[in-house]
């Protein structure tokens, strides 16, 4: 297999325009003859389904949620980037492109990132027209704020609920099409297999989560917009149902998986409180603007924070990075916190937390000032921990938050299986090794509103689709294989509940493939994961039956896939013998402890081909070329 | 026509009908009270009786009377209709429910307080209206009032009914403002004051009369 990224020729500013002209169009009268299956209805899926239906295609949309409005896109707090340059501070399409490529530590495709930056302005226009209540200034025009990794203010926001508002905008556009009958939406359907016929993606097998029936959906193309896989770590800021099953099963049907080891860790999350912790909650990074991070100088110091005198505190970020201090990038702040805790300076009952202290700011500016700026975050902290962040320092710890890796796609967002398109966090394309804040929402909507409507038309117009219905052999085979897998899962009848095994997997991943990774640890994980997988298949217990609503069975399917994906992540991390962005190999750091890339050896996308469970996957490389943004070393000293 | 039908059968339309008839009935209460207050005039009821005669005989009053009855009936009918529909919206009820944590008793019991007021009205109309209008016997309205209001039993019933009316209006008046979409922050004080006039002042003023007759005679 040769990976063809299909990047159009020409100067970067003209690639997308030229490509749009070169692509074939589907005659308006013929569009309704094509049927597109969209799996996942978050930002990317809902915007794609609505836009395609508006164009005239017949669309079937599936979601494992009860409604598209529940998708995890809703949890994004901060905002969405667009280089509108409303603040007149020198922003441009090129600058957003530059910041994103650099922020991704030079592991993203330039052409894709440029296009993302180009279409991002139209997203804001679209959302405003839908009635998204973005924050405004007193003059009635849109407000912008600054966000990590950029020196301009280009982030549009709706309080701390930007993801929610953008999702509700896309959801309303989708529901409008559902009302018009152009989209058929099926709720509580979980995709469990991709149907490939004559080498093309032609449909999916989904489980009706209410009555357990397996259902076949056939179409002329399949779009996966099924999100990321942070939950492979069990504890992450992702919603509980987020999973990799749709992408992983497509991978097993032949779709290559790109850069799986690129995961992002967010530094300011509320730490784990007990062994029963089910998920982690993120608090906006803006807290680091006014809070000071410290740990006790003494190891295992169990005194209350207010009783530790100033001279016995180590403000380690200020000490290590005198110029950036507490405002170092996400990955640096996260790694240093872990390092402090590993050395025994961690605080709280678990010893896995550092203090985020506002007492100096409160002394300087008053409690009211802090409350006005960060009140909602202090409230959130109190709700979860029962502690008052104004009285004593808050405890924070990093948590997995986003996955830059995903199914490999070309410039048209098509995977290596023809007719399989992958959008949003589910694909690998735009963020390289590290995603900038307020860029996830931008990418999801860019893919759904402004890219897929063009590129899918080209695919449909260029191919013939012999009639295939749900009774065709490809569908029968896929359905049988899903039914067999389900039976096999239920038949294990072991002793250990799914969540217990999932937590074990999470611990392995966090320990050996989390913030800091090294060859020995990764190798250890490569032994532990298959062993755990074997235990899963011998000892998992799933109560209830397959033909009913059964959340244990749902989780078991997802964990079965995580147990395979985890191994691939570790393999990818082991292969990538360099540090870049969120991937930090301890063997490769500068004297200052920063990520040290190796551009001569690793300036490529690692795209993995499935070769069978318990068989090593096959690696394909897509070389990355940087014609516009020349790679350089980051420094935050 | 279709529009009117869909308006009156929709839940919001029916609520607007409730509000509209409610406001109308409140305006009637004001007129009623105004006339009742002549009972206090120390002229052995001659002014009061002249108004009563006027109401009974002036031809233009008839249509108003019919509209008023229609208003009552509509208010009651739509109220029952809504109540049944609302009950049907929750066929399985909660085993444990704590509505007192989220709403006032008056707002939850408007149907029952209204029902009690309706029962009172039937008796009240029978005592003062039906007999004088349809079976005139030469007894003046003032004499009827004196007779009724000197019975401690009737007065107690009357006062209890007024208390129910007050409780009904406590919810009803501000609720009608809300239904008409007028309940905004800037009108808050105005609405609270208007509601207070109707639900508190008005029933108290009504209550003064039987107490006066009972205690004075």
């Amino acid at each position, binding site marked *: 297999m040769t990976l063809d990224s299909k990047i159009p020729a020409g100067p970067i500013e003209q690639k997308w325009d030229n490509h749009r002209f070169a692509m074939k169009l589907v005659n308006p009268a013929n569009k309704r003859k094509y049927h597109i299956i969209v799996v996942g209805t978050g930002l990317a899926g809902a915007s794609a389904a609505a836009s395609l239906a508006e164009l005239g295609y017949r669309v079937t949309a599936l979601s494992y949620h009860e409604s598209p409005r529940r998708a995890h896109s809703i949890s994004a707090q901060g905002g969405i980037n667009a280089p509108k340059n409303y603040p007149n501070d020198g922003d441009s399409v090129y600058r957003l492109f530059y910041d994103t490529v650099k922020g991704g530590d030079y592991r993203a495709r330039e052409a894709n990132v440029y296009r993302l930056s180009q279409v991002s302005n139209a997203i804001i*226009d679209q959302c405003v027209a839908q*009635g998204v209540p973005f924050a405004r200034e007193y003059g009635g025009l849109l407000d912008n704020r600054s966000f990590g990794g950029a020196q301009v203010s280009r982030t549009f926001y709706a309080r701390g609920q930007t993801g929610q508002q953008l999702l509700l905008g896309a959801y309303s556009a989708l529901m409008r099409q559902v*009302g018009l009958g152009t989209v058929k939406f099926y709720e509580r359907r979980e995709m469990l297999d991709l149907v490939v016929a004559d080498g093309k993606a032609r449909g999916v097998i989904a489980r009706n989560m209410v009555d357990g029936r397996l259902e076949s959906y056939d179409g002329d193309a399949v779009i996966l917009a099924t999100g990321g896989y942070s939950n492979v770590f069990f504890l992450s800021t992702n919603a*509980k149902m987020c999973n990799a099953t749709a992408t992983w099963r497509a991978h097993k049907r032949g779709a290559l998986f790109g850069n799986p080891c690129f995961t992002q860790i967010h530094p300011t999350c509320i730490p784990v409180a007990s062994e029963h912790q089910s998920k982690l*909650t993120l608090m906006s990074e803006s807290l680091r603007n006014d809070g000071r991070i410290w740990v006790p100088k003494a190891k295992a110091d169990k005194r209350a924070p207010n009783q530790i005198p100033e001279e016995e505190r180590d403000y380690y970020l200020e000490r290590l990075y005198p110029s950036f201090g507490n405002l170092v990038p996400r990955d640096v702040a996260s790694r240093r916190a872990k390092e402090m805790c590993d050395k025994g300076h961690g605080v709280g009952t678990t010893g896995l937390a550092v203090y985020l202290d506002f007492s100096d700011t409160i002394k300087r500016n008053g409690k009211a000032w802090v409350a006005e700026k960060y009140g909602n975050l202090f409230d959130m902290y109190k709700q979860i921990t029962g502690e008052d962040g104004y009285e004593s320092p808050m405890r924070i710890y990093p948590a997995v938050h986003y996955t830059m890796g995903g199914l490999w796609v070309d410039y048209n967002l098509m995977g290596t299986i023809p007719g399989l398109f992958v959008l949003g966090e589910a694909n690998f394309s735009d963020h390289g090794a590290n995603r900038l804040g307020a860029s996830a929402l931008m990418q999801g909507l860019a893919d759904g509103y402004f890219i897929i409507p063009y590129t899918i038309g080209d695919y449909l117009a260029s191919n013939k689709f012999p009639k295939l219905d749900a009774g065709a052999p490809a569908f029968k085979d896929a359905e049988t294989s899903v039914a067999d897998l389900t039976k096999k899962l239920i038949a294990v009848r072991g002793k250990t509940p799914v969540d217990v095994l999932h937590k074990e997997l999470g611990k392995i991943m966090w320990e050996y493939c989390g913030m800091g990774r090294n060859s020995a640890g990764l190798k250890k994980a490569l032994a532990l994961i298959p062993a755990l997988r074997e235990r899963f298949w011998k000892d998992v217990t799933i109560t209830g039956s397959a033909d009913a609503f059964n959340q244990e069975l749902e989780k078991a399917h997802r964990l079965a896939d995580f147990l395979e994906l985890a191994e691939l992540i570790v393999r990818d991390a082991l292969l990538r013998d360099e540090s870049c962005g969120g991937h930090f190999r301890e063997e490769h750091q500068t004297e200052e402890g920063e990520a040290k890339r190796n551009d001569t050896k690793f300036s490529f996308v690692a795209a993995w081909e499935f070769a069978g469970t318990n068989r090593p996957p096959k690696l394909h490389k897509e070389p990355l070329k940087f014609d516009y943004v020349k790679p350089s070393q980051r420094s935050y000293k | 026509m279709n529009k009117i039908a869909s308006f009156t059968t929709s839940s919001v339309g029916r609520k607007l009908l409730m509000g509209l008839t409610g406001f109308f009935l409140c305006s009637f209460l004001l007129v009623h009270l105004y006339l009742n207050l002549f009972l206090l005039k120390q002229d052995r009821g001659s002014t009061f009786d002249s108004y009563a005669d006027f109401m009974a005989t002036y031809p233009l009053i008839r249509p108003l009377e019919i509209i008023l009855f229609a208003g009552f009936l509509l208010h009651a009918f739509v109220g029952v209709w809504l109540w049944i529909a609302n009950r049907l919206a929750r066929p399985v009820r909660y*085993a444990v*429910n704590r509505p007192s944590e989220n709403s006032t008793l008056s707002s*939850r019991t408007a149907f029952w307080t209204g029902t009690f007021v309706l029962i009172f009205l039937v008796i009240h109309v029978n005592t003062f209206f039906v007999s004088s209008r349809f079976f005139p016997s030469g007894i003046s309205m003032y004499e009827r009032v004196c007779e009724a209001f000197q019975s401690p039993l009737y007065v107690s019933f009357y006062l209890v009914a007024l208390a129910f009316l007050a409780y009904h209006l406590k919810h009803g008046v501000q*609720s009608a403002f809300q239904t008409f979409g007028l309940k*905004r922050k800037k009108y808050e004080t105005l609405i609270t004051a208007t509601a207070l006039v109707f639900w508190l002042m008005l029933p108290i003023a009504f209550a003064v009369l039987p107490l006066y007759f009972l205690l004075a005679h």
Partner: protein
Amino acid sequence: MSGTMTITLNVWRQRDRNSEGRFALYTLPNVSPDMSFLEMLDLLNLDLVRKGEEAIAFDHDCREGICGTCSLYINGRAHGPLKGVTACQLHMRTFHDGDSITIEPWRAKPFPVIRDLVVDRSAFDRIMAAGGFVSVRTGGAPDANTIPIPKPVAEEAMDAAACIGCGACVAACKNGSAMLFVAAKVSQLALLPQGHAERARRVESMVAQMDAEGFGACSNTYACEAECPKQISVTHIARLNSEYLRANLT
């Protein structure tokens, strides 16, 4: 903070939409005050699964109060005893050792129980499909700053838009009315100039669909506002009412 509690749980169990349901009693020791309410249910489910019994089905996803998926009627209150909090944000420190807690699903005719504590809220989607949108084609939008919107108007629209569609308003309302949910969307789009072109059609269609689904009427008890985890104000219901009146009078 240390020390664990023993909690008695009275939980609604129902196999599917067509089965009869009943309450089942469970005693759960070792509940830590730091657990969230849903983590307490996770713990109970681990226990049940280990014993070979079927886990209690309940809807949940983000567990940080924004997705609107969790929907538990806890001791007679939608989302439990705290104000402005979803069930997933409720923590066990709100309860005491020895407490007994009754957990029921949302109860309303348009929200049939699918299993145990899970209800079908697709009625909300159908109301949205009836008119909860601005009809704008992808790509057809003017520049975002073409129409200035006064900040207070945008803020009020945002207050309404904060609705998470959890259905607590319906669950708490004695009439099972969906007015706060519908009003939040109608009000948001009535406030913003982008929504004006369709305002009459929107309110009429959404109210018609709400009625067709079998939700009750609004009695203005304001239980919805009191139980709404996002504390959406009933002034939005007032705005829906005036929008409806306006649509029918003009």
